[in-house]
Structures are given as structure tokens and as C-alpha cells.
């Protein structure tokens, strides 16, 4: 009977974590809403299932996304995850092939060398031992990187690494002990019996030359088992819970479940899937430009898990979306942050439902019971009828050159348009939503919707990407919503406005709300290329930087905003362009004071390029809605 007391810690740990992981998954499954439950069930069949398995292989094991971003960190994660997976897989096969019987207890695979010390004589056995040693070496190389990273993150190409709490450090230590202790235990046993392959054999024979290998080996087998057991038992209390949780997340996500507006099982699974890898910190401009290092998404996830007060962390974020894009686990970081902001405002505030190992559901109900209307001072409106509306937005009133440029462009197009907030309008509502005050925002949304509906227009053009996003997503309007760069692109395509080519060098700063948060990259770029020489900056499209002026950050001081803006402007004007173009009045207002280069909105550059027609236009043709004439359904 192959058994020894030292395997007990490992067994306890392994069975504990397996049962725990399954139980927790079942609990989470039961908390899904009914539609989500159906989605998940469907996700275990067909294409979604294959996708999930593929993603688990490529991301959870190989860590392809991280490899693409940072080779050293990617290799480190890959070697530990994939390496350990291979070790378990081939170890299980090993005991299956070479062991006494099939279907063995797990400990027999893990501690194979202990129970089969003579193994490795025949060529096949030797080959297999070589494979196992190779995998172990693979893991150990990554482990070395991990140790280096803990002491010097710059050496592995990251600006900063996550700070850990005590329990994390204990779990980390036990994790780090696992493979070295396996190496030494296997080596000593191999040394005593004269077996082992290139790693364990070589090390073993050297150690055996001056130690009583077999006796010294035994405590190391105990160490191996204890470190495994400790790690497994501590796993649910630390960030390493992400290992099983991430698998569950992938299946859920590929089944079509998403975060939504409220705390739910999916957002909890996401929060627990965060491995604290620190890539979000690396991407965050608050970190590398403003020196603020305690509010990034990894810390938010941690705070939620630990039931800490998330107010300061949740509100100090530009909501630029750079971390969302970079997260290798694909956690929807910004929506989770928004849920925290809404908590206590328009939604119920939940404390974390897990405390340590156990369930702990404790909610604090909505504190704001006021159902009275807040903005009832807004007057009834009677706007003029128009086909196309232009809504400048609050910020555009502080950058009048944009208003003037758009007026010129709209007039040049010959279309029947109306400037609905010419004398100053009511805020679109998104700044309130960014602060978590959805209910209040809804009042403003209703007010503005009334005005838009009363004009009978079929198209709404706005200069501000913040307004654009809320009009498109939260106003349930029956009009086509366009950002002014899209409108200008339509004008170019439809030949409504003729433009000269200005021979000036231009770089483009893509506004967060327009680019990453609304997905509009092509139109601004095409428009700029049509009128000027557009140059690249290395920060194109999804990789663009945030100017720092964000209304999403409630807390950030003006001085820190300036620091961020200065860095961004310096980066984007490295090639000394004639214009630094942008498509957002807030970006313009933020970047203009911190650079000597001329900062101009795309509409200003286009207005400069307009050729006014010599012959009076036949405007009959343009009475059709822009939608139709531009061929957009």
C-alpha cells in the first residue's frame, strides 16, 4: 500500500479546495438571474463551449494577452500556470502508465518519485523523467522572474507592482516553496537511488555526495506536501482564488452574460477573478503621470473583496478605459467601478457577500428616499422645428471657436439646422451619471428629450463626446445621434461641403469618451486625412491617452490634472505638429494651456478648409434627411 503520513496535508488541502470551489460555483450559479442561468446552461454546449475552452487554454494557461504586452511578465505567468498544469497532467499520466494500477489517488501522481524511487531505468521511463524535469525547470525559471518582480518591478518591465497584505504574503510564500521543495525532495530521492534526469538527477547526485540523501529527503517531502496543503487551504482567502474563479468567469462571459448596472453574481465572480497581476496599474496615467498609486482597478477589486470602504478609490478614476482594455482576464473594470459609485446613491449598497470562507450577505438599503423632483425649476420649452439639431454641450460654451466653426460648417452644408442650446442649455445628464446619480440624471434626460422630440428633428449633432455617449445610450430617442466628426464625414462623403487641403502637420488626440468608450475612431481620422497631413503618435485608437480633464474623476486636484495633461501634450507634440487636433471641448480646454503647440478641434481645422460655393446651392436636394442621403439606414 503506497502511503505515508506526509501526504496528509496535501490531501486535506486538495480535497478541501476542490469541494470549496465547486460549492462556491454552485452558490454563484444559483444567484444568477433566470435569463443568465439559461444563458450559462446554453454556454456549456455548442460554439460557446469550444470558445471557452480555447480561451481557458490561451489566456488562463498561456496568458497570450499578457505575453503580447510584456514578454517577461507573460512568460512568468505562463510558466507558473501552464507549467503547473502540464506537471499535473503529465504527472497523472505518469502514475497511470507506470504505476501499479489505473485510477490512482492524486497524491500518488504528485509524489510519484517518493513512491517509485527506482523509476527511470528504461529508455521510455528515462524519456518521461526528462519531460517531467523539463516542465519543472520551466516552472522554476518563471518562479525566478516572480521573485525578481517582487523586489524590482522595473527589471521585468513593469512600472509598479501590486502591494500585498499579510495573508497574501503567507500564501505567496507557500506557493513559492512548492516547486523548489519538489525539486530538492525529488533530487535527494533520485540522488539516493541513482535515478532522476538532467535536473533532479544532476542535483541529486551532487547532494548525495556529501549528504545522507534518503534521510534528508524526507523532511523535504513533508515541506512539499505542507506548502501545497497550506496554499490550497489559504487559497479562498487570498487573491489566488482567481485560479478557479477565472475558469467560471470565462464560461459565463462566453455565454453572453455581462456586468450590467447592479451588483450581481457575475460582477462578484469578476471581482474574485482578479489575480492582482498589476497590469492595470501599469496602464494607469494616474500612476505614471500623477504619482497616485492606490486607486487602480486591482486595488478596487481588493477593497470590494475585503469589504473596505470603496468611496475614495471608486471616485478617483478618470474612467478612461485603458485598464479595461488591458486586463488579461477581461474583467469589466469600469462598469464595476460605476456600480460602486452608484451604491448608496441610486442603488442599494451591498457589502461583499463573502467574508473569509463563508457567505455574508449584508446590504445597506438605499439612503436617498427622496422621490421629489429636483430639477422642477426647468421651464417648459417651445423650440423651433428643424430637421437637424446642433447641441453644443456645456463645455463647448467655454470654447467658442468650436461653436463658430460648427456654425460655419452647418451653414455651408445648406441643411436646415437649429442650434438648440445656443443661449446655453441644460446639461445632457452624463456628468451626474458618472457620479452615480442616475435618478437625477434621468430628470435632465427627460427634459432634453422633450425638447428634441418637440423639434421634430431626425438628426442630432453634438460637439461633445460626453453628450454623444449619453444621447446614444441613455436617451431613448428616435433620432440619429452623430458626433460632429461623423456629421462632417457625412458631409464629405455626400459632397455637401467642399474643402481645400491645408498643408499642415496634424497629430490627433483621441478623446476617451469618443474613442474607447464609444468606439468612434475612423471618422475623425478620415476627416483629418481629408483636410491635412495626419501624423501618427504611437497612441492611436484604443491605445490613446487620456488628457486628464475627465469629468469621470470627481476627486482629482487641478494640479494633478495639469501634470497628466502636460505629459500627454508633450508626448503628442514630440514631432512638432502645426496642430494638435482633438474632438472634444474638454480635451481642448485641458490640453491648450499646457503646450505651446496650437490645439484645435477638428471642426476648426475643417472650417478653415471650407470653400464656400460661388454659385448659390440648390437646397431642394438637401431637404432629405441626412440619414438617407448618406446612405445610412
Amino acid at each position, binding site marked *: 500500500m503506497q502511503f505515508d503520513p506526509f501526504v496528509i496535508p496535501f490531501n486535506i488541502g486538495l480535497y478541501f479546495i476542490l469541494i470549496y470551489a465547486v460549492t462556491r460555483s454552485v452558490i454563484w450559479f444559483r444567484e444568477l438571474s433566470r435569463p443568465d442561468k439559461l444563458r450559462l446552461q446554453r454556454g456549456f454546449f455548442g460554439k460557446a463551449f469550444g470558445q471557452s475552452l480555447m480561451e481557458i487554454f490561451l489566456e488562463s494557461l498561456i496568458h497570450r494577452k499578457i505575453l503580447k504586452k510584456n514578454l517577461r511578465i507573460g512568460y512568468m505567468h505562463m510558466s507558473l500556470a501552464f507549467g503547473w498544469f502540464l506537471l499535473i497532467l503529465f504527472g497523472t499520466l505518469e502514475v497511470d502508465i507506470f504505476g501499479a494500477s489505473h485510477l490512482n489517488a492524486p497524491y500518488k501522481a504528485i509524489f510519484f518519485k517518493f513512491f517509485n524511487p527506482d523509476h527511470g531505468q528504461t529508455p521510455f521511463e528515462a524519456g518521461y523523467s526528462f519531460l517531467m524535469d523539463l516542465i519543472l525547470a520551466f516552472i522554476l525559471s518563471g518562479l525566478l522572474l516572480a521573485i525578481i518582480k517582487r523586489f524590482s518591478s522595473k527589471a521585468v518591465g513593469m512600472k509598479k507592482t501590486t502591494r500585498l497584505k499579510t495573508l497574501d504574503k503567507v500564501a505567496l510564500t507557500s506557493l513559492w516553496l512548492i516547486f523548489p521543495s519538489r525539486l530538492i525532495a525529488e533530487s535527494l530521492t533520485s540522488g539516493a537511488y541513482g535515478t532522476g534526469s538532467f535536473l533532479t538527477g544532476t542535483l541529486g547526485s551532487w547532494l548525495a555526495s556529501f549528504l545522507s540523501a534518503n534521510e534528508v529527503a524526507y523532511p523535504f517531502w513533508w515541506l512539499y506536501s505542507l506548502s501545497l496543503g497550506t496554499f490550497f487551504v489559504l487559497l479562498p482567502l487570498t487573491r489566488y482564488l482567481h485560479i478557479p474563479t477565472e475558469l467560471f468567469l470565462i464560461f459565463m462571459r462566453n455565454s453572453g452574460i455581462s456586468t450590467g448596472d447592479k451588483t450581481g453574481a457575475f460582477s462578484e465572480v469578476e471581482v474574485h477573478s482578479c489575480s492582482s497581476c498589476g497590469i492595470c496599474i501599469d496602464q494607469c496615467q494616474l500612476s505614471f503621470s500623477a504619482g497616485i498609486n492606490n486607486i487602480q482597478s486591482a486595488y478596487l477589486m481588493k477593497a470590494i473583496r475585503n469589504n473596505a470602504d470603496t468611496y475614495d478609490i471608486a471616485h478617483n478614476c478618470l474612467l478612461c478605459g485603458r485598464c479595461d482594455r488591458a486586463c488579461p482576464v477581461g474583467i469589466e473594470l469600469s462598469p464595476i467601478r460605476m456600480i460602486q459609485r452608484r451604491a448608496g446613491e441610486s442603488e442599494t449598497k451591498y457589502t461583499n457577500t463573502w467574508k473569509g470562507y463563508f457567505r455574508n450577505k449584508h446590504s445597506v438599503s438605499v*439612503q*436617498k*428616499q*427622496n422621490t421629489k423632483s*429636483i*430639477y422642477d*425649476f*426647468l*421651464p417648459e420649452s417651445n423650440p423651433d422645428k428643424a430637421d437637424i439639431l446642433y447641441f453644443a454641450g*456645456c*463645455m463647448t*460654451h*467655454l470654447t467658442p471657436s468650436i461653436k463658430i466653426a460648427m456654425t460655419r460648417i452647418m451653414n455651408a452644408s445648406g441643411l436646415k439646422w437649429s442650434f438648440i442650446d445656443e443661449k*446655453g*442649455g*441644460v*446639461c445632457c*445628464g452624463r*456628468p*451626474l451619471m*458618472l*457620479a452615480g*446619480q442616475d435618478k*437625477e440624471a434621468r430628470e*435632465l434626460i427627460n427634459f432634453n428629450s422633450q425638447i428634441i422630440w418637440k423639434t421634430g428633428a431626425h438628426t442630432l449633432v453634438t460637439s461633445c463626446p460626453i453628450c454623444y455617449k449619453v444621447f446614444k445610450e441613455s436617451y431613448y430617442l428616435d433620432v440619429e445621434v452623430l458626433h460632429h466628426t461623423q456629421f462632417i464625414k457625412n458631409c464629405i462623403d455626400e459632397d455637401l461641403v467642399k474643402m481645400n487641403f491645408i498643408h499642415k502637420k496634424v497629430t490627433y488626440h483621441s478623446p476617451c469618451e469618443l474613442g474607447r468608450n464609444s468606439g468612434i475612431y475612423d471618422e475623425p481620422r478620415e476627416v483629418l486625412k481629408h483636410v491635412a497631413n495626419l501624423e501618427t503618435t504611437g497612441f492611436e485608437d484604443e491605445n490613446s491617452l487620456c488628457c486628464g480633464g475627465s*469629468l469621470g474623476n*470627481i*476627486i*482629482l*486636484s*487641478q*494640479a494633478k490634472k495639469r501634470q497628466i495633461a502636460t505629459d500627454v501634450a508633450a508626448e503628442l507634440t514630440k514631432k512638432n505638429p502645426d496642430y494638435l487636433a482633438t474632438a472634444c471641448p*474638454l480635451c481642448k*480646454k485641458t490640453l491648450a494651456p499646457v503646450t505651446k503647440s496650437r490645439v484645435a478641434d477638428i471642426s476648426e481645422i475643417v472650417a478653415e478648409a471650407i470653400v464656400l460655393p460661388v454659385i448659390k446651392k440648390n437646397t431642394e436636394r438637401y431637404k432629405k434627411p441626412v440619414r438617407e442621403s448618406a446612405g445610412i439606414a
Partner: protein
Amino acid sequence: MYKFGFSLTKARVINYESNDRSIVDFILEREPSLNLCIECGGCSATCTTGNYTNFSLREIHILLKRGENEQVRDKIKQCMLCGKCSLVCPRGVNTRNVVFLAKQAFQKFTGHAV
């Protein structure tokens, strides 16, 4: 018998000694830039809400600083958080955060949500 000396109507006087400045203290602890405000009125001038109703952020700042909280309580929620005030302030006061914190402070200290 004549009563000489300083005698203002109770309703008019800002009684600095007895006024409760816990709200402004709460705000200042978290947003010290409010200390820089010189009441220039730029924020009120540009205010979106100010276009429609008699909401004056400058007035709210001064009332809070003096501890005249009751006059602020119902007004503060009219802010649309649009952010123009912060963009205009010449002293660099983070006015948007001041409003945000004021709302919180009222909730916390008076138990009555605004």
C-alpha cells in the same frame, strides 16, 4: 433707560460663535482647495443651473464657510455636476468635488438625505 450698544436683528446676523461649521470642516478635510476661494463669482456666472434658477455656487461657498447651513441644504442638490465651474475657477478650487462632498456631509451630519 436706554439700551445702547450693538443690536442687530437676530435673523440677519451671522452668529459666527454659535454657527455649526461641521459641514464645511468635513468638506475642507477632504477638499482643502476650498480654502482658496475668493468669492470672485466666476463659478456662479458660468453655472448651467444658474441659467434657470437662483442657484449661486459662490453664495453656497460663503454660506457654508460661515456656517449658515440651513440656507444651503435644499439648494445644493440643484447642481447638475456639469463641471463648468471647475473649469473657470481662477484659484483652482475643485468646485465640483465641493458640491459632491457637501451633499454627503448633509446626509451624514443631519441624517436627512438631500
